[in-house]
């Protein structure tokens, strides 16, 4: 347990040294500028426009910086052979992975909290709380995925491309499913059946990220505890899956 805390603390220290939080502050400043600009051009519903666009900007920025930080940090670990040093110690590979993941999760939590706090000037705290917890869950899934991808590919470009592709797919899979089941395409041909089967299988394997971190909670205050429950359960299930896959990968690696 102590090793996990040490590893997590080192990840946070690395974030501080690489000026990760300076990027977060710059993004917050950009978000503030965006909100002011939108407030100037919207004729009515100013707060709704400001909060929804600011939330979308912050959510995408959070996913972008956190996943990139995870990937670059782990690639750096491979390149400077720190991973070999850690694994040469009396430390289980699972402890190493969980420790790293805990550190990245802490970074994700701080990022979600800072971004959520920015929305408090526009939206009631209950909805912001819901949005922040949901963003944290989204970031946890993306962190676990980034960890898996970087362990698999060892390269920034490949790992980040897979992460971006996964994120876009997970956010739009419901829309793709609805399009595939539309009346115009709902024929009984072999090709359509194969495509439908492929999309349904893909949807089964992906987390329903389109239910996460919804702007409508902020704009129309429609977020309720049940939404959060669904998100937390999905996050737990998917993180267990991704961490297990990462463990499978790291135990098979000849490090």
């Amino acid at each position, binding site marked *: 347990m102590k090793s996990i805390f040490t590893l997590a603390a080192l990840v946070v220290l690395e974030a501080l040294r690489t000026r990760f939080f300076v990027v977060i502050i710059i993004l917050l400043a950009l978000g503030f500028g965006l909100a002011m600009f939108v407030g100037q051009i919207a004729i009515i519903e100013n707060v709704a426009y400001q909060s929804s*666009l600011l939330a*979308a900007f912050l959510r995408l920025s959070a996913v972008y910086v956190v996943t990139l930080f995870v990937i670059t940090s782990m690639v750096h670990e491979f390149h400077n052979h720190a991973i070999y040093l850690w694994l040469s110690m009396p430390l289980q590979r699972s402890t190493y992975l969980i420790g790293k993941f805990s550190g990245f999760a802490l970074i994700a939590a701080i990022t979600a909290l800072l971004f959520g706090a920015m929305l408090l000037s526009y939206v009631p705290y209950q909805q912001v709380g819901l949005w922040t917890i949901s963003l944290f869950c989204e970031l946890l899934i993306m962190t676990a995925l980034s960890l898996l991808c970087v362990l698999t590919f060892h390269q920034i470009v490949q790992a980040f491309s897979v992460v971006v592709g996964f994120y876009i797919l997970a956010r739009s899979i419901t829309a793709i499913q609805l399009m595939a089941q539309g009346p115009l395409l709902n024929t009984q041909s072999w090709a359509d059946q194969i495509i439908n089967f492929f999309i349904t299988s893909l949807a089964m394997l992906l987390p329903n990220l389109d239910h996460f971190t919804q702007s409508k909670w902020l704009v129309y205050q429609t977020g309720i505890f049940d939404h959060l429950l669904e998100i937390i359960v999905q996050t737990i299930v998917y993180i267990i899956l991704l961490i297990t896959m990462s463990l499978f990968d790291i135990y098979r690696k000849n490090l």
Partner: protein
Amino acid sequence: MIEQQRSWHSVPKMVIISLFLSIGLQILWHHQLPSPQLPIKTLAEPPPLELLHLLSFGDPIVTAKMLMLWLQAYDNQAGQFLSYQQLDYIALQKWLEQILHIDPNSQYPLLVASHIYSNVADTNRQRIMLEFVYQEFFKDPQHRWPWLAHATVLAKHRLKDLPLALKYAKAIATHSNSQMPRWAQEMRIFILEDMGELEQARLVIGGMLATGQITEQNEIQFLNEKLQALEKKLASPMTNSE
């Protein structure tokens, strides 16, 4: 991590000269380029709803807000202001419909249709916008009545089309609720009076008073006075015709 850097004196002079030269060249190159000009683009038809949902990446509200701001700014292209007469109002109406489909709680598309795009100096275009407000009103009368009320005023005073104004006023009255102010429900009385349909106006007021839906004393008194005035007008057709 503190990185130690050598003094800039250690950079070869050629590199420094090359740096300043390249910056100068870039600035010169930029100045000789023609000033950016874009041809005015006509407003295309909106993509299908399914595609918009797909491109929303699971957050249609944000897409709706972004599309609305983009559409609002469409008449200002590359520093050139388009008049509303240059806009394709059929495409515009479809865009507003799509935006309202993906964000039905927003009032913004109805505001721009009834207050902004209806300000065009072309009655056909004005009618397209007013009809859009009318059609969309029925999907959520409780929240959308103010826009139809404004459309009624425009139909009456700007288009001078009293039957159209009456159609809108009747729709508001038919879908009235407790939160709707009385003036919105009573609009049809004044339009009927302007149309010379005094008997119908009298019947509407009589009906409103008889059903007991009005409880406020001042309101009852006002309608009673209006009823008496109408009855007086009806009783003296000569005065009415004058």
